């Protein structure tokens, strides 16, 4: 180096350093197109959807934006594609999507965008489309490769695989406990409300007054109505044996038809078929308050000594039970309508709460099928309790340690579609 002009040399050197630095800065902020871009048919859906995946990039910050471009399969130039979505470059990650870890197609840190029909997009199953992703920052734009994919419907939603396993597992458990109950004696806790059933029927017989039995507001598709119908069978058998009048007003014609058969069979089994009356089960109306007014009228006129309220109820519950209480009848209720429980508990002598109603049919019949089902349900509840406990601990550990591995367990018990 010629040191005869040191000032000029120093300036030149500084200028060179400056140029290199600026060049570096520009090189750093030079846009990179999305890498490892993939476009696939969205899995686990009914079709007409594509999923775009790409790896995280060095420019993933709030200043930059990703743009999803979509068009016909014949498009070969990005200019022919339409921008259907735009979002900040530090959003839309695989880990944020509400899908199960076992169905993810890429790492949690990758970007994911699901293209669906609507808002300018119209896809048909079996037809290919061209998709790409571009990165924009200011005036700059870097477009990824153009890729083709074809949406198609799937036959199984793997996101619900955990749901299927748990449902089948519970079903299997119930059938196992039923077969276990057939071979062994299973202890069943005494439910005070059910012990009172005999007492109530006996009281009605002594007083020479009828028994009123209601099966609730829902139709035969509801478990509570089925449980009510099963208990009716047992009650009808007792009333047949004691020769007490039984009145069963209905809100649903199909329930009435089923209960009629059940009552007839009960009288047959009690050896009193001649005492069976066709109109012991009668239809009033489907309308809530018309039915309530009619039943209240029956209570006030006929003054039954025992009232049974089994099944699902709504606002009419208090109207029925308070009227029944005013006539001095003994009242036994059983419902899974938790919003009516306070009214039943305050106005009835005994109340079967929630699944105690389902347990009632098992308790009365002593059938292994019913008892086995109860045991299966109890085990199911124990499993849920354990999962809640373990899940709480794991979630806390996950938050405390910052690890994502507890999610592997927690996701299995989540509702993911």
């Amino acid at each position, binding site marked *: 180096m010629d040191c005869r002009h040191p000032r000029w040399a120093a300036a030149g050197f500084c200028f060179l350093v400056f140029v290199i630095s600026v060049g570096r800065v520009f090189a750093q902020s030079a846009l990179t197109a999305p890498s490892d871009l993939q476009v696939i048919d969205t899995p686990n859906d*009914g*079709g007409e959807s594509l999923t775009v995946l790409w790896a995280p990039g060095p420019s993933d910050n709030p200043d930059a934006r990703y743009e999803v471009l979509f068009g016909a399969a014949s498009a070969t130039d990005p200019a022919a594609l339409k921008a259907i979505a735009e979002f900040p470059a530090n959003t839309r990650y695989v880990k944020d999507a509400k899908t199960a870890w076992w169905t993810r197609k890429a790492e949690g840190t990758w970007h994911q965008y699901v293209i669906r029909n609507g808002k300018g997009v119209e896809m048909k199953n079996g037809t290919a489309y061209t998709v790409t992703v571009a990165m924009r920052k200011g005036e700059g734009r870097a477009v990824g490769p153009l890729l083709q994919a074809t949406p198609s*419907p*799937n*036959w*199984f*939603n793997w996101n*619900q695989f955990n*749901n299927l396993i748990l*449902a089948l597992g*519970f*079903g299997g458990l*119930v*059938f196992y406990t*039923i077969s276990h109950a057939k071979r062994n004696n299973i202890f069943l806790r005494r439910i005070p409300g059910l012990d009172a059933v005999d007492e109530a029927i006996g009281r009605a017989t002594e007083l020479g007054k009828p028994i009123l039995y209601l099966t609730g507001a829902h139709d*035969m598709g509801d*478990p509570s109505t*089925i*449980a009510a*119908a*099963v208990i009716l*069978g047992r009650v009808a058998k007792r009333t047949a044996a004691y020769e007490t009048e039984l009145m069963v007003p209905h809100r649903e*014609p*199909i329930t009435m*038809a*089923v209960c*009629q*058969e*059940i009552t*007839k*069979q009960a009288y047959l*089994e009690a050896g009193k078929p001649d005492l069976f009356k066709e109109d012991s089960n*009668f*239809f009033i*109306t*489907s309308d809530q*308050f018309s039915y*309530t007014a009619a039943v209240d009228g029956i209570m006030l*006129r006929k003054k039954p000594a025992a009232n049974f309220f089994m099944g699902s109820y709504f*606002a009419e519950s*208090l*109207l029925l*039970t*308070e009227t029944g*209480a005013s006539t001095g009848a003994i009242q036994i209720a059983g419902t*899974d309508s*938790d919003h009516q429980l306070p*009214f039943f508990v*305050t*106005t009835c002598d005994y109340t079967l709460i*929630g*699944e105690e109603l*389902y347990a009632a049919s098992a308790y009365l019949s002593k059938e292994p*099928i019913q008892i086995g*089902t109860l045991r*299966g*349900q109890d085990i*199911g*509840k124990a499993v*849920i309790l354990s999962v809640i406990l373990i899940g709480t601990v794991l979630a806390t550990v996950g938050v405390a340690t910052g690890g994502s591995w507890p999610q592997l367990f927690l996701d299995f018990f989540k509702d993911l579609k």
Partner: protein
Amino acid sequence: MIFLRRQLPLLITMITGLLFAGQYYVPHPSSELLLTSATKWLQIIGGFALVLGITSLFHQHAVKIRRQEAGWGYSLVLYAGMLVTLAAGALAKGKESLDGAMTGFGWVYSFMLVPLQGTMFAILAFFIASAAYRSFRARSREAAVLLVAAVIVMMGRVPLGEYLIPLSGDVSQWILNVLNASVRRAILIGVSLGAIALSFKIIFGVERSYLGGGKE
């Protein structure tokens, strides 16, 4: 005969039960189409069930009128009401108003059904008070806790309560959002497990009481 009364309904129940349980896990459009068709059938059958109910109602009250049993006059009133409403509805084509004018059907709806239903629902307010007076006694520790919680929520849910004791609003919100929600969830879980178990039993023919009659 046994096949028609027992085996066939059980077979239909099993096939359709498994089919629609499986349908939930299949996102394919043909699965959705199956569901749509089934729901249409449900709507049609629901209409038939109504006919069954009305026929039963007519028959039951006709017997009462013919035999002149106690209260047969009310059965006559029921008949008259049903026929008049049916006729009014048919004439008005089921509409409560036509071209801004109230139809006969609309008159029956607005001046009979609406006030009568409202009256029945309003009785609840009085019955709640009398039931509460009769039963809300601190007979035990649990009853006392229930009583205190009830009073706090009753106060917290009305402006006067929040005005007198501002904390009652927040406490009642906490009771509803935390205590109530968790307990309701527990009851819901129990009831849902019962419903799932019952559904499995019905689908696989283990539970047959819905068919009527006893064991065979």
